[in-house]
């Protein structure tokens, strides 16, 4: 066994949303450390994967042992301002359905939170909602 490859987990998560939002109707999706200038009144999604604290699961130090690695994926969904939440929540449903209680490549996704409408969108000029999905994977050393 080997230590968990967090970058591989990130890539697995991001590939899933990329594939989904590449289907019609296509929605641009951005990730950490990517520059993007959205066009006015367009829809787009920001996907941010972050890892949290790991914890011991079993005895055994660096061999024959296991850790729990947890993380969260935050999806910021932006749609045109002043046109109601419908189009935004449709994207939210696509994202929610994509991760809801799914197990992919050893990553266990929990039931999602949201989409929650945010009172102060960032960047301004859009209607923004947020879907958050916590996940965990078991690292086998």
């Amino acid at each position: 066994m080997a230590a968990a490859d967090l970058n591989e987990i990130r890539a697995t998560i991001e590939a899933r949303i990329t594939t989904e939002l590449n289907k019609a109707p296509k929605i641009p999706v951005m990730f950490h450390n990517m520059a993007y200038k959205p066009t006015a009144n367009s829809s787009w999604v920001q996907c941010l994967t972050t890892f949290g604290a790991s914890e011991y699961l079993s005895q055994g130090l660096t061999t024959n042992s296991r850790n729990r690695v947890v993380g969260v994926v935050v999806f910021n969904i932006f749609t045109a301002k002043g046109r109601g939440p419908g189009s935004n929540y449709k994207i939210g449903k696509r994202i929610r359905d994509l991760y809801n209680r799914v197990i992919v490549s050893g990553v266990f996704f929990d039931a999602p939170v949201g989409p929650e409408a945010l009172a102060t969108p960032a960047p301004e000029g859009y209607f923004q909602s947020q879907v958050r999905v916590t996940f965990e994977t078991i690292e086998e050393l």
Partner: protein
Amino acid sequence: MATLRGEQGAVQFDATGSSNATIVGTRSWTLTITKETLDTSKHGDTFRSFVGSMVSGSGTVELVYDPDATGQSGFLEDVVTTADTADATFELFTTGTSSGTDSVSFAGIITDMEITSTVGELVIVSASFVTSGTITSNLE
């Protein structure tokens, strides 16, 4: 002697007592060793006196269940061994896995096994055992 933490420990087991192997996914173990006492007080004594008698042990092992993890299935299925002759061997380590060092070893019988599956949580196995015969302590 350094202070130890639980993650340094391990449990080794063999259902037939031939060659102990580490049970992968062990989360914790406990062992209680009890020595019975015999009252040797005599008529006229004003203070009660005792001698040590039979020694026995019991304990638990908790696993994060994984049917593919080395050693787990053999361990948790030993509870269904009928007419158990206590041929299974255990070695509980406080640190490392070097046989005869920082460990307690004995033959024993798994007396109960509980597997718990709860939504949103890892599946956990908890097993209890009693020792049979000599308990060899190397907790130096």
